[in-house]
């Protein structure tokens, strides 16, 4: 049986906004297709850092304070994470995790250095950007829905965004872009949590991971997503149509 290993980075620190729902969603959608999902946490107490057998890395969001602690620790593994991403490793990064993948996050009184995996940077804005958000993406007809809550404005330069904002603020409030997709890295501000209500996005990510593990793999079997679609469409209909 095929096995996909999901590494959850610092769930002890970055665990705001129900991000564990993303892990549960990936696990469930793999297992229901007969693919074994192994979820491993990497916490503050772990030592060593090895991504060689990892198929998906997940980084969630935390408070500014917790994010700073994580950042200091993650910088030690900067090269390992960068190599992994450059070699097509799948990374899902949400909110604080998204900001960490950039070059830096400039706060009022200090600048937090990021991993520099994405050529992006974030600056603290005056007002927090809070509310429901709806995106359209080019890899699926299904809209991507979620909830954003960030003080930072992220500038993504020449990177390709995850989607275009149909409702909400997005990366920097102005550009109409949200998130970044780079190789198999998906980074976004969307909570909700992100994946349960966006089954197409979840499967897009899982497909990338499974294909990397098995180049002969073609596509994931369909699942009964009636409830997922209802939850998704409820948000789309309420805010966009």
């Amino acid at each position: 049986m095929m096995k996909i290993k999901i590494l959850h980075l610092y769930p002890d620190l970055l665990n705001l906004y129900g991000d564990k729902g993303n892990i549960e969603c990936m696990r469930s959608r793999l297992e229901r297709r007969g693919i074994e999902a192994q979820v491993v946490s990497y916490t503050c107490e772990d030592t060593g850092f090895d991504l060689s057998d990892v198929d998906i890395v997940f980084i969630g969001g935390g408070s500014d304070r917790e994010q700073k602690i994580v950042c200091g620790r993650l910088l030690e593994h900067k090269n390992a994470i960068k190599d992994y991403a450059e070699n097509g490793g799948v990374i899902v990064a949400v909110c604080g995790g998204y900001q960490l993948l950039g070059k830096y996050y400039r706060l009022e009184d200090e600048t937090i250095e990021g991993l520099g995996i994405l050529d992006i940077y974030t600056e603290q804005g005056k007002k927090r950007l809070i509310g429901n958000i709806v995106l359209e993406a080019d890899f699926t007809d299904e809209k991507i829905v979620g909830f954003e809550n960030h003080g930072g404005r992220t500038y993504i330069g020449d990177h390709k965004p995850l989607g275009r904002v149909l409702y909400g603020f997005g990366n920097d409030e102005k550009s109409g872009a949200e998130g970044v997709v780079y190789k198999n890295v998906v980074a976004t501000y969307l909570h909700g949590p992100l994946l349960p209500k966006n089954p197409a996005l979840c499967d897009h990510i899982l497909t990338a991971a499974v294909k990397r593990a098995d180049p002969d793999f073609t596509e994931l079997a369909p699942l009964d997503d009636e409830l997922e679609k209802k939850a998704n469409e409820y948000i789309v209909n309420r805010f966009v149509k």
Partner: protein
Amino acid sequence: MRKLLAVWLGKILTVIGKLAGKKSSSSPGHYALKICPDLVGCIEKYVSKGIIVTCGTNGKTTTNNLMASALEAKGYKVLCNRLGANMLSGVATAVLQEMNIFGRFKADYACLEVDEAYTPIVFEHIKPDVMVITNLFRDQLDRYGEIDITSDIIKRAVAKAPNAKLVLNGDDPLCVQFGRCEGVTAYYYGISEQVLPQLDDTKEGRFCPVCGAEQHYNFYHYSQLGDFRCPDCGFARPPIDFEVKNVSLGTPMKFSINGKDMSVNYKGFYNIYNLTAVYAALNVLGETADDFAGLLAAYKPQIGRMEEYAFNKPVILSLSKNPAGFNQAIATVNTDKRQKDVIIAINDKANDGRDVSWLWDVDFDKIADENLNTLTTTGIRVYDISLRFKYAGINVDKITHDMTDAVKTCLATDSEVVYVLVNYTALYPTEAVLKKLGGRT
């Protein structure tokens, strides 16, 4: 003169509100404040013995109202914002309702529940004598941003009321940090023994608020409440001034405070904290609480605090507003060993928190124990809560947009009891449904 105009306007609005069948808990105050911005300030003038402000994420309405009841039972006249409207406008409305047409009132004490975010604003107008902080949990994140932001807001408030004696939950590191603010006098209450199974639930505040290291626990109660110590900087649970021991969670619930036995008709472990906070505050005020149980007897719980409605079987309505509250409600449901139907209603209006991500931080899966008969989901975000169960591998028997339909269905099953767990804005509509269907409280 402005004050009089404000008072009259407020009184008229209250009457209009009543005629329209509304519970005018904050709008009269809102408009009156536009005419007389310092309306709340006159509490200082007309309250003779003391002002007690209660804030914190969970339990503040219960704690505040219990405090007012206990003081009233001692024969005092008490100003209290009982309906739980806890922003400046809610406090102003309570003042208006107490005032006569000359804009005066007389009270011995003011018991005021104040929303954490509004404490610095309220403290511009009044300086409390005692400030109770019950706990800090993750709550309504889209409004506050993060728990650290709430802590900073409360610190600003504490700085504005330098003479207030703080009554703090000594089991909550996030509360204890306020006792370290400059120049404050703090008293601590806490539960000094392990009572509940040591579950690994979401401990959002388990990092030391002083240095950021992960704290160690000798035991904990729920969330981050317990006997904590930071291994790095030594920040730890302080000596407890009002100490709970000998806890027995039956009916009635029994425990002792500083060796005095209590026996109370309240459900839910968390109510021990609410009761002890009141006991502590009374003592700090210099009021004796010798007949504490007697003082509490007069108290009628606000709606939705494990409130029982009588039908062919009992229907118990419980309000929870955040993950810590829901986990506690679920734990209380689990202590009931009768066959039960459970209805969960989740809304996402401003007062609920528009972000429903928190549903995934609640151990909802624990609701499915051997005594669960049926599970029903409803509310504005019915699909989100249903998905939460789907990914926990728990079957939802009924997904409906209609609370009446949900309750009727459960009344028709052969279960022995129905629990309805709701978040904030689902509370009053649910209460209306239960009353309309003939439930007696």
